[in-house]
């Protein structure tokens, strides 16, 4: 194991130097970026824009992009990038499997591979690093914020995303711990499968039942908006100085504006901005340095924060907000 490691590191170093010298020749670092299409979601759109803004000629890159939601199309595009002789391959894979051969080929050619947003099921030594979100950490950050509010009691209406999705599992986990520990009371826990209108119906049914609640924990912005619509119709106040604390995730621009207006209390970030981190790592490799701070899966967890309605400013909306 250690031998392979040294070998790969040595190879990486040699090719990094080689890459550096060739980059010196035409002054640009060649990167091939394989991603999902921006039409997938608002998240993906921001993600695609982020990479297009960072990997530019001005920043010293000659970048080629390929978008598909199909794994086989992504695989052949990656293979083509290797044939084209790129220096680095950046991948957000459609599926976790099937990538062994392509990544092995890349390693043979001394191409540095970075994964972003999505993991691939391969030996971690086949890629330099993976920049990913930790959904469980997003949930923890949100629940820590909620506990810090020191409400006299916590009666939580929990609206979940599509059951089984990464975001749902991560964001539910932290809250479930509180329910089990008894620090918070679960009034209702129901899935709206990311559907805004369904979230509204769920909150309506809680209101109709007459049960007391003072927190709405919705696992994305759209569902939080649906929940708030139900509160508005029932004459229940929310947000800063309101009766009910409203929490959402994803940091859409419109959601951050709700926060800024004091209608909501909290919005948790799910950062699509991985390009800058990868850029820094590539520059480190180009200078002959090593990437550190990786865990055993070679992951770097994206820095993600939660926004509080009391502290958010206009600049935050512009910097961190997704969409329009």
């Amino acid at each position, binding site marked *: 194991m250690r031998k392979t490691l040294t070998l790969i590191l040595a190879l990486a170093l040699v090719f990094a130097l080689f890459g550096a010298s060739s980059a010196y020749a035409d002054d640009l670092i060649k990167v091939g970026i394989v991603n999902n299409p*921006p*039409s997938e*979601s*608002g998240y993906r*759109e921001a993600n695609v824009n982020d990479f297009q803004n960072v990997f530019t000629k001005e920043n010293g890159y000659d970048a080629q992009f390929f978008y598909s939601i199909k794994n086989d199309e992504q695989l052949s595009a990656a293979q083509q990038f290797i044939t084209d002789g790129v220096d680095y391959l950046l991948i957000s894979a459609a599926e976790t499997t099937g990538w062994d051969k392509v990544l092995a080929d890349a390693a043979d050619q001394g191409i540095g591979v970075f994964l972003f947003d999505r993991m691939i099921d391969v030996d971690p030594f086949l890629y330099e690093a993976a920049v990913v979100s930790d959904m469980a950490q997003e949930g923890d950050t949100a629940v820590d914020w909620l506990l810090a509010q020191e409400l006299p009691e916590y009666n939580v209406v929990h609206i*979940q995303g599509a*059951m089984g999705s990464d975001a749902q599992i991560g964001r539910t986990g932290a809250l479930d711990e509180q329910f089990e520990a008894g620090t918070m009371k679960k009034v*209702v*826990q*129901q*899935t709206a*499968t*990311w*559907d*805004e*209108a369904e979230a*509204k*119906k*769920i909150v*309506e*049914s809680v*209101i*109709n*039942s*007459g049960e007391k609640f003072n927190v709405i924990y919705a696992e994305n912005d*759209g569902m939080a*908006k*649906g929940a708030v*619509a139900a*509160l*508005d*119709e*029932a*004459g*229940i*106040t929310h947000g800063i100085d309101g009766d009910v604390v409203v929490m959402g995730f994803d940091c*859409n621009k*419109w959601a951050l504006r709700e926060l800024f207006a004091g209608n909501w209390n909290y919005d948790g970030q799910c950062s699509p901005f991985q390009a800058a981190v990868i850029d820094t790592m590539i520059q480190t490799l180009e200078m002959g340095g090593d990437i550190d701070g990786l865990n055993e899966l070679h992951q770097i967890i994206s820095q993600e924060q939660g926004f509080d309605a009391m502290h958010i400013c206009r600049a935050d909306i512009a910097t961190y907000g997704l*969409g*329009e």
Partner: protein
Amino acid sequence: MAGKKKSTFFANNSQLLIPLIAIALLVIFNLFRDPSFFSVSIASNNRGDPVLQGNLISILNGASELVILSMGMTLVTAASGGQDISVGALAAIAGSMFVKVLKSGTVTPGLIIAAFLACCAVAMVFGAFNGTLVSVFGIQPMIATLILFTSGRSIAYWINGGATPTIENATINAIGSFIPGIAIPTPILIVAAMGILFALLFRFTALGMYIQTVGINQSAARLNGINPVGIKLLTFILLGICCAVSGVIGVSRLGLINHETLLINIEMDAILAVAIGGNNLGGGKFKMIGSVLGAYAIQALTITLYAMKVPSTDVKAYKAIVIIILVVIGSPVVKAKVDQLMKKIRTGGSAERRQSA
């Protein structure tokens, strides 16, 4: 005499028995579970207007889009003997178009009407596309509409330009929520208006009969001077209008269009509503009121499950169980058995009466 009249009423409307039984069962179940389930109260919303509140209102309000879609779906089913599975996707396209036009300038009542007309036009074009594939090219409706089912939300994405645009406007809010001063949710009023429009259409034209005729026997319809292609096409265009209205309600509820989630999976519920309504999914005779009752039954079931706090992971399973029971009760085999049993009881009863006389 009175008894005879009653029996003919049930003979004529026997298909309505299943949705009525479904609703009755849900009502009785809920009354036992929680007698206050159906209580309706007047509250004041965050704008200070009085509004009606309660599970009954939630069911009637929440079912609005489904009810309107199932009206259109009934017609398509009756005429073409198949179902349109693209209604959710088409509603997303229509909703996106609605928002697109609204975003083009400052929102005035005139612009809202223009936006509505634009989204109706787009939905009618797509409806006509589906209808042409079915009526002119004779493709199975489910296969023909599969095209739009898979591509529709991408088209909606393209109209939106990628994001989930939001609209903050008092009039839009009134369409999806409450008109100030009127305590009934606006979507319920829109459903009533659509119902009246369809009732007038069937009362003053022979369209209903034409649709049934085409559904029962195309060649016979043609021999009688009815154009089956035109009638089928018309039902798909009418369904397109239903999609547009549903899309507009869906968008207006929250002032947001999310092309991925707007009325997601509603096509299956709409088909189910038609089936629970006792309509033959193979076409022919139909009763729109049956589908409407079916749609309300489906929504009542969902709200009941929410009120019972059924765990998120189990909701679909519970729904499936209830639906299996309803569909089995409505199946021809069970119907025939029940009819036989009823006949036996009736003849037995009259024999007894004769004896006692």
